[in-house]
């Protein structure tokens, strides 16, 4: 049985029961009232007739005729008993078995005095209600000859009321069953397609991609055959499924596309990371320096980069030199993220690497690279770069900055200072920008610390920036004298500061120490 049917059945049942009860009560009450009145009237009529007919036998002292007469009336349905009393209230004929009950004798006791009450008007027939009967007392010759008492049986009224109520209840039950039958049929008619649609919807929900369209055939008959709300619903279902099918297909295509792009990006990242020097190999780059680097990318393909390799010293005229006496250092950050940034970073990296050997001036190198990048830079992407040449013999550093954060130097004495340099304009913005070199001689033990703004702009959970102040503090506090230890210490500090908050930018650092 469907739940819809159960609910309807309950409501209809309650409704029928209520109606049936009310109807029965009303009819029962009406019948009771009507029949009581009818019995009273009949009692009056019969008592009147008997009172008139009794005159002769009473006056003739012929109780046998009287008895014979009242016996005839006892056959009338509803008459329970008849009694005739003479003027003294003595019962001279009656139909009671086994005897005249006391309450009837009490009723009669008052009649003996009736003839003394002439002043109160003519004696009249009166009805007295008792528990089981309606007693009608009629005077014979105005009460002077005696009285006739008719008892009308209430049990018949009660039986009649019960019989009518039973009939009515039976009829109501029949109607109820018929109504239930019709309801059941109608609800089945309505609920079956709904159930079918429900089952169909569950199937659709569980269906494999691409098979939704085929399921619609199941409800095609509903959509086609009925023109009511069910048909409308079925048609909506079919329409929705068609849309859903298409959307799911599109989604599948786009997921595949995204997957492909993601795979490609991963490849791109690998390629990009391969462009950068492997930090684990930096330690053995040259015995005169110790180098450490660290890069943590915020997205798969980031825009930060660093580079570090040795160069032969530039040959002055007539002079030859052993190669490996210069160390080229570069760190940079491409504006934007993702593939375009990665491409620009690759390009910048490649330009710096290929052009570095021709230059002794960091500014010159930057100007050449800027010239190339600024040409046809329609996407208006920029790169900040700090780069420098470290003479491994003299520990003299020639450096320049294209809009990048200033480098920091941590002396062996834990003192930290910023390497002053003209900040310069970012690469790629203007082909005609001039950069200026700065020079500094590093002391043995000094750690040159290069970083991108990902470090200083690392954010805590409370969206507070890590800041240069904290960075310099961390450098100062790092009681380490090796570049690896310094970079690890700073990275740990930043991580603790961020406390798991997602970082928007790559975090890149490069540290070099002259031995």
């Amino acid at each position, binding site marked *: 049985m469907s739940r819809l049917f159960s609910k309807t059945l309950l409501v209809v049942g309650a409704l029928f029961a209520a109606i049936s009860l009310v109807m029965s009560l009303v009819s029962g009450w009406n019948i009771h009232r009507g029949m009581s009145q009818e019995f009273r009237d009949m009692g009056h009529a019969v008592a009147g007739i008997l009172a008139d007919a009794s005159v002769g036998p009473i006056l*003739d002292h*012929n*109780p*046998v*005729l*009287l*008895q*014979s007469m009242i*016996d*005839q009336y006892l056959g009338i349905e509803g008459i329970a008993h008849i009694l005739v009393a003479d003027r003294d209230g003595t019962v001279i*004929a*009656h*139909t*009671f*078995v*086994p*005897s005249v009950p006391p309450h009837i004798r009490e009723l009669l006791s008052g009649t003996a005095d009736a003839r003394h009450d002439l002043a109160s008007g003519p004696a009249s027939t009166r009805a007295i209600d008792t528990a089981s009967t309606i007693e009608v007392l009629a005077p014979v010759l105005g009460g002077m000859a005696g009285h006739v008492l008719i008892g009308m049986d209430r049990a018949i009224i009660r039986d009649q009321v019960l019989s009518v109520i039973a009939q009515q209840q039976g009829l109501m039950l029949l109607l109820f069953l018929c109504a239930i039958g019709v309801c059941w049929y109608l609800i089945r008619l309505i609920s079956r397609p709904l159930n079918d649609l429900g089952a169909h919807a569950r199937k659709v929900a569980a269906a494999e991609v691409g098979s939704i369209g085929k399921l619609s055939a199941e409800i095609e008959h509903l959509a086609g055959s009925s023109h009511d709300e069910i048909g409308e619903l079925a048609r909506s279902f079919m329409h929705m499924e068609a849309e859903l099918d298409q959307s799911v297909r599109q989604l599948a295509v786009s997921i595949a596309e995204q997957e492909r792009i993601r795979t490609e990006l991963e490849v791109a990242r690998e390629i990009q990371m391969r462009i950068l020097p492997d930090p684990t190999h930096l330690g053995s780059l040259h015995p005169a320096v110790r180098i450490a680097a660290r890069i943590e990318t915020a997205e798969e393909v980031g825009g930060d980069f660093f580079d570090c390799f040795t160069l032969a010293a530039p040959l002055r005229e007539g002079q030859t030199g052993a190669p490996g006496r210069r160390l080229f250092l570069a760190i940079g950050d491409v504006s934007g993220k993702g593939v375009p940034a990665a491409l620009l970073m690759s390009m910048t990296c490649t330009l710096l690497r290929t052009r570095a050997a021709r230059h002794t001036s960091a500014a010159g190198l930057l100007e050449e690279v800027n010239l190339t990048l600024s040409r046809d830079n329609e996407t208006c992407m920029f790169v900040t770069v700090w780069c420098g040449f470290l003479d491994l013999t003299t520990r003299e550093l020639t450096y320049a900055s294209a809009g990048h954060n200033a480098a920091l130097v941590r002396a062996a004495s834990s003192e930290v200072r910023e390497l002053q340099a003209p900040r310069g304009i970012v690469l790629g913005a203007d082909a005609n920008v001039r950069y200026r070199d700065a020079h500094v001689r590093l002391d043995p033990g000094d750690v040159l610390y290069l970083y991108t703004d990902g470090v200083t702009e690392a954010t805590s959970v409370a969206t507070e920036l890590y800041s240069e102040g904290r960075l310099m503090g961390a450098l100062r506090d790092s009681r380490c004298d090796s570049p690896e230890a310094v970079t690890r210490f700073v990275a740990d500090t930043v991580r603790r500061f961020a406390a798991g908050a997602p970082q928007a930018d790559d975090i890149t650092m490069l540290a070099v120490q002259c031995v």
Partner: protein
Amino acid sequence: MRRRAALACLLLLLIRGTGTPAAAADSPGQDVIVLGMSGALSGASAGLGRELRSGMVAYFDHVNRDGGIRGYRIELKVYDDGYNPGPAIHNTLQLIERDGALALLGYVGTPTVTRVLPLLKMYEREEVLLFFPFSGAEPQRSEPYGRYAYNLRPSYREETRGLVDNLVATGRQRIAILYQADAYGRSGWQGVRTALEAHRLDVLAEATYGRGGDFEDSYAAQVDILRAAKPNAIISIASYAAAAGFIRDARDAGWDVPIANVSFANSQQLLELLNAHAQISGRRYGFNLVNSEVVPHFRDESLPAVREYLEIFGASTAHRPGYVSFEGFLNAKLMVEILRRMEGRAERREFRDVLDGMTDFDVGLEERVSFGPGRNQGLHTIYFNQVEDGRLVPLQDWSALRIDVETL
């Protein structure tokens, strides 16, 4: 073909030939005097109707065998009314209108007879008379209907007076009454009441039962009501079945009070019921019972009527002799005498003259029967009997009735 046609004619004649007498049975034939009876042949009082009929039929058969009345055969048409007034009226109409009954004879019971009486008034012009009903009630003895009926048996008033007088004379003044809640009961009730009034006494207590009360019904309620009043005698105006039931319940309750029954309570059948019940219960029920009878004991062969009855009745039927069949026998004997005094096939209009001239007719009892203007009852002597050794014997000594210990 001719033989077949002749055979068909013969068959037709045969059918017609047998059909005519059958049709004649419904309407009075030339040589038949039809008398009509309606009585209880079924129901609680069936024994009365059957016995009464058997007594009448035995005598009529005897007369018919001897050549009938002037060559006219007497036919008694009997219909069953089950002791109910409605069927009794229907039967009476049938007897008068269809069967052409010369007179109505031997109706059984007061409630039936009382209701039939107005019918006789209706047929006043046809002069339909009711003879010798088995009822001692007053309506068929007094105005306004007494003129349409002739009674043989004494009235209940006489029976009850006989009972009351004898009971009072033997010191039983606290008399209660059990009666059937109908005209019969009322008739006896009135008789007892009137008889007691003559002694300046009143009915001590009364209880009723419904007409048709059977022996198997319980009469404990009636016993309780009457016993509560502590009477020293009960007069029972009941049918034999109810009277026997009441006696059984009274005795079973340990109540030994003397109980007197009237003739309608067919003392023989009453005793048969009690004797049969005594076999089952092992008690005795016959003590302290008195029955008033309207005819002498049916074995009192000192009476010519009894001798004739025993001779004719004993030879004709399988029924055992009894009061009721004896009464029926006497009814028939008197009826035959009346018919004999009429002329030819007898006409209803002859009845009055014949009856007016019937004086001191010897029906074979000690008492002579006389009818005439203002005299519509033939017999007035009441007989009493009691039970001894399970048999009915004439009551000799009223004072021999045991005194009920409860009322001492």
